[in-house]
């Protein structure tokens, strides 16, 4: 097996590991935090804050 064959296998392996890492972290996060917390982001926070300071 030459270098490039090895690189092909390494690329498959690293891709699988990265995908697995994201998947595991995703499931762990979703089971640790409530949906209300995870989806609590609201648009325009900084702008609203600046307006309230002005007021």
């Amino acid at each position, binding site marked *: 097996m030459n270098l490039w064959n090895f690189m092909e296998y390494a690329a498959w392996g690293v891709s699988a590991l990265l995908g697995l890492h994201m998947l595991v972290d995703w499931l762990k996060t979703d089971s640790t935090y409530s949906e209300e917390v995870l989806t609590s982001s609201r*648009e325009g926070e900084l702008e609203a804050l600046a307006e309230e300071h002005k007021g």
Partner: protein
Amino acid sequence: MTDIDITSKTMDGMGPHGTKVGLLRVLGPAHVWALGVGIVLVGEYMGWNFAVGKGGAYAALIACWFAGILYSCVAMIDSEVTSTVASAGGQYTQAKHIIGPLMAFNVGLYLVFAYTMLEAANAITAGYLFSVVATMSGHATDLDQRPFIILVIMFLAWLNYRGVLATLTFNLVITAIAFLAILILFLSTSGIVGGGIMEHAALFEGHELPYGWIGVLAAMHFGLWYYLGIEGTTQAAEEVRSPARALPFGTLAGIMTLLIAATLTWYVSTGVLPWEFLGDGVNGSVAPLFDTARLSGSTGLVWLLGFGTLFATLASANGCINDASRAWFAMGRDKYLPSWFGAVHPKYRTPYRSIVFLVPIALIFALGAPLDQVITFSILSGLLGYTFMPLNIILFRRKWPLNSIKRGYEHPFHPLPAITLLALCGVTYFAVFLGYGTQLVAMIGFYIVVSLWFHFWRYRFVNRGAQFTMPWPKPQGY
């Protein structure tokens, strides 16, 4: 002010409206520059040269500068609106606030498709580059490009998942190297440093405009390539520390960088490569800057431009993942799509579900669709987005005149840039129609169908009141 507590353990300190976990404001103007230029610079390394094939070297230069005007208008208009509507989603959020829900839904889809298709195209290109390196290093059989295509998408998605600061700092470094490589190639081959190898007069003689002025018009389609994606800077709006300063600064510095890079790219490539070879991006010059470096005879330049090509490709894919996921996230947050997509990772502070969701879509296109179709879909989606911008800025100025809202940047000569942009979009539609008429009609048909779906079904789920959060005065005339 009672609900704001910067020492709170449960709130992020900037969330007067109940945000417990939001995107992180950590970026500066350099990251905005890296996002915009990073997405685009691959177009200098490959792709723009199809314009030479359509109309010759001079046609490619005319297209380069006219497209440069088009994108300067885009950059100025975006800088004004986004420095005011500083939220994730970029043009989608602009459309939502200024025009209306149906336009916002369409613009959101243009953005997601344009960036996801471009990401897939970049991954295909990266796979091809790996195979070229394998062949050059003596690998006897054809390299299987698939694992490298998948690795590029998975690695960059993982980087995006883990945090925006590292993602765009990575983009800043590789984009700066790719841009410097173009400058060094220009200095080394033009005669400014050492001996020059430019042969413009000899190469152009008798081939000034081989297909006449219709060739110039056709070249406009690929003229977009020099700058396609600079409008992506707006997607960083919710993650920059100072939107009013960083967004205009980063975006306008970005378009200036690209105008320089595009003109230098044209100059060095057309001065060394014959137009018939340069204009054939499939069987001729796939990567013109790299080919120019090879003809210079300098091993150092070959390595530099080789890395420049790879880095530009990675930077583009990286920026596309960032932008597509922000647009998808913003649409989810407003319930234009299921609100499940509007989630933010509590540790990494990224729209993690949107990032992961778009990975298989990019993989399907990268592994299953031909490169030219993927790129055409991306360009057409981008072009539809540019057509929306002039309408957007005209309505923005009319509804909220300059004295009604403080802007981070006010673009000059309004409405001239808007009218110029609209006219150049019209010319480009015609140019695209000449080469890809069927795809253009099919894609417009697709957006009409999804618009009907949104109007008759999806709109009932949209957060109609909660989606307008900007503390703006009522628009004039309402």
